[in-house]
């Protein structure tokens, strides 16, 4: 297995993952009831029933957010991808975290179908994860944030330009974690968990 092959395979894994993220993010937004359910339509992805946004702009946002992560994922820079829901004073109320690690050395041995099988369970779990999530406050908004292991060099790639450094407000205390799903099969280690502010979090909006 030469280097190039391995890289190609990593690329494959990354592409599948990005596609998966797009679907998963949509599922999360659907799950949260952020938009009326009429804004989504049922589709089948990886043989599982999933939702897809009808509105072209929403669909495009999610698609572009996910796909512009591709170069970073391929380089192994992305550590976590978070879907964050904010209250109207811009304090996060809930974060869905995808924590991911791709091990390029064993990427070569995996085949596409196997990976899809593994990822499918996430989608199934997500579709029934509603009891885990908190109700949304009014006037909320949401965003996709990626946490990188290190900053890519400025201007090194065109793809990076879509992304902006964020000054997202953070919680003051370590959050409470509710694991949703874990997948730990080489080459991909993917975990999905929820973060909620800890109980002792005291009105951070006022504090700031």
């Amino acid at each position: 297995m030469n280097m190039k092959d391995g890289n190609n395979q990593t690329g494959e894994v990354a592409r599948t993952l990005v596609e998966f993220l797009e679907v998963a993010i949509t599922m999360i937004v659907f799950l949260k009831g952020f938009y009326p359910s009429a804004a989504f339509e049922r589709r089948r992805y990886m043989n599982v029933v999933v939702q897809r946004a009808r509105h072209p702009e929403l669909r495009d946002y999610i698609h572009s957010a996910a796909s512009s992560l591709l170069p970073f994922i391929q380089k192994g820079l992305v550590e976590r991808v978070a879907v964050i829901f904010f209250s109207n004073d811009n304090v996060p109320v809930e974060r869905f975290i995808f924590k991911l690690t791709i091990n390029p050395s064993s990427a070569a041995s995996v085949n596409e179908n196997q990976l899809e099988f593994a990822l499918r369970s996430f989608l199934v779990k997500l579709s029934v994860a509603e009891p885990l999530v908190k109700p949304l406050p009014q006037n909320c908004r949401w965003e996709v944030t990626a946490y990188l292991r290190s900053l890519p060099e400025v201007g090194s790639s065109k793809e990076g330009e879509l992304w902006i450094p964020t000054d997202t407000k953070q919680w003051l205390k370590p959050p409470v974690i509710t694991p949703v799903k874990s997948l730990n099969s080489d080459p991909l280690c993917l975990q999905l968990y929820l973060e909620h502010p800890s109980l002792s979090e005291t009105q951070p909006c006022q504090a700031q």
Partner: protein
Amino acid sequence: MKRSLGSNSSGGSGSSKKSKKKNPSNQKTLGAAWGSGAASLPSSRSSPFSDFGSYMEVKNRKLQNQFENEASTGVSDSEKLIFQGVSIFVDGFTIPSHQELRGYMLTYGGRFENYFSRRSVTHIICSNLPDSKVKNLRAFSRGLPVVKPAWIVDSISANRLLGWVPYQLDQLNHTQPKLSAFFAPRRHSNPQVASSVTSSQPETGYSEAEEGSSIKAGDSEESRAHVADEFDGVYTETSIPEITAQTRTDDLKSSEVNADILGSYDNEEKELSSELQSTTNLPSASNNKSSHGKPVSTAAGSSVRRHSTLEDPNFVENYFKNSRLHFIGTWRNRYRKRFHGSFNGLKWADSGQSTAENAKKSTIIHIDLDSFFVSVVIRNRLELQDKPVAVCHSDNPKGTAEISSANYPARAYGVKAGMFVRHAKELCPQLVIVPYNFEAYEEVADQFYDILHRHCRKVQAVSCDEAFLDVSDVRYVEPDILASTIRKEILDTTGCSASAGIGSTMLMARLATRVAKPAGQFHISAEKVEEFLDQLAVGTLPGVGSVLKEKLEKQNIQTCGQLRLISKDALQKDFGVKTGEMLWSYSRGLDLRSVTAVQESKSIGAEVNWGVRFRDQQDVQHFLQCLCKEVSLRLQGCEMIGRTFTLKIKKRKKDAGEPAKYMGCGDCGNFSRSITVPAATDDIEVLRRISKKLFGSFCLDVKEVRGVGLQVSKLEGADPSNKGSKTLTSWLNSAPASVQTEKDDNVFAAEVKEIPDGKRRDTGGVSRLRECDSAEPSVQSGDTNSSLPPMCHLDMEVLENLPPDLLSELDGTYGGKLYDLIEKKRGKRKINNDSPHVSLDDMKVSSSVSVQMHGSSTSGGKELEEPHVPNERAIEITDLMPSSLSQVDVSVLQELPEELRADVLEAFPVHRRDQSSSSDAPMETCTKQDKEPTYINDSENEIGFSSSSLWFGNPPLWVENFKVSGNCTLEKMSEIYCKLAQSRPPLLSTVLQRALSEVGSFPDASANDLEKTVDDVCEFIEEYIEIKVEGDIEEIYLCFRFLKRLAARNQLFHQVNENVSPFIQALINEHYGGSLSIP
């Protein structure tokens, strides 16, 4: 046989005759044992023994029974049961023979094991060991004492159990005394002894370190050693550190009180001097030594201090108690607390630029107490004033203890700091060695700074005895006069002389002080700077060490005058940008630094590089534990918490021999590694885990380690009120533990600010309703457990903010313990509560330390990954299809909407669909059938190269261990595992779940082995968690919740849960920067 009898001591021969009589019967039973074993073999196909393990179990039990029967019939009452609690295993050829030894054990109340087991054996008896076993002693003995048979013979002749230490096998004995004396099993720990040991602990103050360690009877350390020897297994370690920590703080408090009382008393007596003193000042306690009730330095010398990590379990603590560097290090914190607070209001707004601008005009005084460490001690001992005196922690004329400070008369003889006592005594035979007196140092340092702060606003403390004053803006008095006023005041108040240097920069002031010493002052005015520097040797410049000096001398540069001839560029080229710059400006008397207040410390840590000797991982773990405690205490002392942890190791260089300094570190290579965690902490448990991980990542031979230091940086205030602003930044980059260097803002985001208000609310209402309906997570259903959460899970902050009446009600339900808990937490923070189980962990875990090191080194980060990991990772992932079903909880499946479930199930083969849709205990069936290979492969990947892990192998090691443990609960666990493991190894959560369904049939653990069982269970769960934490929190979460539910129903699991929960949370916090939600 005859020879062996002949070799016995006369006292023992009588009893050995008795055993000789019994020999025939012994032989018979042994034959019977073999016979039964052989007989069972042919029938084994249909036999009750399903495998070798259960066969051995039965066999062991039978042998034991035989032994007991014989013992009960054979023991005549007249014989004293001197071997009560001793259980021996005889290895190889011995004199007397192992049959005889067995007889002795029978007669004198001991036990004799035919097969080695760590659990039941307390001593290994042998007279000879093959080389391989000696080399790999730990694997062979599992930490048990290896003793010559003479121990038994002599014990019998003495008619009492002798300490085994002198009988240790010669082959092992050439090393230093064993730490195992302190670590030996506490099976037969005697509570009385333990308590007497701990109560004798409050031993404070200075302890004279005598290299010859002449033993004085009756002192606490020594008696403890005796006790430990005699019971050779009394385990005293866990309780002591805590108690000493407490007594130490108590002592501190009482000493403060004493000082206060004394202070007021003295105030009356010496009104003259008190006029000069500020209110915060403690008057010079000229007679405090005698009137203090406390055992300060004068009371020293009664206890023998142990000299290395090998011998003294409290080594770290004692080390820091007696360390001058430690005093200097912690002094700064004390200083800040004492002075910084009151001067905080005065921000030196001008200090930055203005001093740089009118640098020419600025005047700086450098003031330094003369031979501080000596003069403070002898200030009240007039008879010593003019004699050569040096301070050293040991007064042994032959010793290699280093002199830490010598007074000027002594320096006249050539005695210098850093010199061995031995050499100093050669130079100056009448040299008087005095011990440290840390309390006096503190007192004098405080007085010293009181005076400085009274005279000058801008004081920069360099050390406890050295400071810079910026007197540029003091116009009304000449600096020379000011300096002499200050010096006189210091002399009057403290009885110690000070020297002062005055210059236009900090550099010049400092150089001037050097000329001024002792007890003088010197002013280098701006005009004289060049003249002064011209002849100054480069080596005297601060920042020019021996290496740099040598380099300069090679270039033929001896003085600053010569240095000035070289251009800055050339200097920077030769010595690097910074050093070059420094040399260039220093040689011109330039120094851009300005006098600033004490800075917030950047890092806090502790380092030990004297007396560090390890024999095995266990020693290391213990040492790290102590070190972490020290660091944690220091952090708490500074009210700081930190995120980056750096472990520094000094490793003996290959060719370095035993250092000249006794127990010193010698010629060492320095290594350091650091790790950054997302959430700042001062928690001892986290520190311990991290340091362990870091230590493991060095992959070095513990015998080579000569020094260990732990440093905590990226500090934040621990005070929650000031936490807000700081932790905000830390959360911005709340990346999980990563070894790589961190960048501060690696967060990218794509943002959408769509707020489809109207639309959303329509449906929002509906969805919220639904959420309320199914408030309980589906997986949880069926468990109607309304018991109180254990106390350790209560959120202190919540508790403290409760209204008092509610709190008292809650307190009632917890049986009044709640108030205590709150008090405790308020007073001391978490640490003391945690420490008991922390140290327990440590003991337990250490048997498989090497494993965890490996496990953690892979999880620690890419850099640390073993080169051969990829190969192992390459294990093929087969059959993913079942995996995807098993990853779907069936409970989840049942909650699915009809259509969705149909879709999902369609994806699976027919037979599986049947299973998963059948409603009764569906999860068990499908997990049993469809255990995916991926998890298993993975866990083996991570720990595959460490064969002693409890989770290694298939079935994992613990299954076998538990099976033969003799404890019903443990046996049950291993049974459940085997039952579930029909096709593939199950996950722990599955095992726990099954245990939950069968928990009713679990026997109540008997009180006496409860503790050990809890330890065993904790150990295997914790190892599992460590394996899984990186990649599978879902599984951890499941285990966590099942454990909780088990805890509500079973006493054993309740304790396990109490112990494991904080561990899990700490681990999760370390990796994910949060805590698991408690359902």
